[in-house]
């Protein structure tokens, strides 16, 4: 019995790793797929925004925020968007720094998808943005899954910033992670 379950676990893991993953721009025509994760309160738990309740708001978000964004991609499985990943840009003395954010439909959690997506971003962002020295991410202290993603993707944990953020009216401690272009190239 034990041998069979080990084989099954390996097969599931192998299947997850074979998932056809890609990154591409998110478009207005993707709004129905967007609503799947954006309306899910499990997904939005650590997001600053409340779950979306209507498609009109989803369309406005894609048109007004996603399309003009400096770097925003849909995470796709077999070309269907199941989440999103983005890097924000800064200007002036802060130009060396970009902030990574990501979100994934809960049905796809636990398969290593976001870790793979982060690695894909890391492989390209330092080339697309040669001025970028530091990619950072801030994660709620309670969001252990997201912390593991960044650790597996090679980010360094720099410290806990106390009451750094107000999330839905409550102050939160956040863990700061970073990956430098020099970390990546070594």
């Amino acid at each position, binding site marked *: 019995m034990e041998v069979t379950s080990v084989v099954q676990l390996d097969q599931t893991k192998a299947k997850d790793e074979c998932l056809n993953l890609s990154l591409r721009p998110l478009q207005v025509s993707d709004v129905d797929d967007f609503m799947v994760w954006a309306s899910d309160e499990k997904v939005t738990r650590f997001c*600053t925004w409340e779950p979306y309740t209507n498609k009109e708001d989803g369309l406005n978000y894609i048109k007004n925020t996603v399309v003009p964004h400096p770097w925003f991609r849909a995470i796709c499985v077999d070309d269907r968007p199941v989440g999103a990943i983005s890097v924000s840009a800064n200007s*002036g*003395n*802060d*130009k*060396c*720094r970009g902030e990574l954010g990501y979100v994934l439909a809960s049905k796809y959690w636990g398969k290593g998808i976001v870790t793979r997506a982060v690695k894909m971003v890391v492989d390209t962002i330092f080339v697309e943005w040669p001025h970028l*020295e*530091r990619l*950072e991410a801030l994660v709620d202290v309670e969001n252990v899954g997201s912390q593991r993603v960044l650790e597996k993707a090679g980010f*360094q944990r*720099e*410290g*806990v*910033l*106390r*009451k*750094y953020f*107000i999330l839905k009216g409550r*102050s939160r401690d956040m863990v*700061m992670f*970073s990956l*430098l272009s020099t970390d990546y190239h070594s």
Partner: protein
Amino acid sequence: MEVDLSKITLRPFKLEDADDFLLFAGDDQVTNYLRWQTLSSKQEALDHIKDVCIPHPWRRSICIDNCSIGFISIFPFSGEEDRFKANIGYGVAVKYWGHGIATKALKMAVPQFFADFPDVVRLEAFIDAKNLGSQRVVEKTGFQKEGMLRKYAYMKGKLRDMFIYSFLSTDLPANP
């Protein structure tokens, strides 16, 4: 030089402070780790006091015998999401380094600031990894070191590692 720390006071800047202001704001050693450009004339000092110090949400002159020998600047962030946070910076004339003046001044300033800005919960300081003196000042004042932010920002054209420190309103000693 003996310094009597009980003579250290904080007050808003006045135009009359221009000569004293230039003594520290015109010194590269003081402005080295600040975003300010070193000032080079009394007129620039007057302009800076008029255009920056006086309208500033919370900037104080550090004084000995009412004479300005440095500054403390605390800037609350703007915007709905960020007004609970503020950033602190300070500088003291080189002649007065090594006497605990900055620490004394910060220990006076921090509770005053939180009283003046009751919405602020988190006061943070970004200190260059090489600025050991300033790290000691904030640590003695009671700031907590949270971590080192590698290659965090450019300062005067160079990419810097910075320690991030915080002092929360809840870190203030409870009133007796």
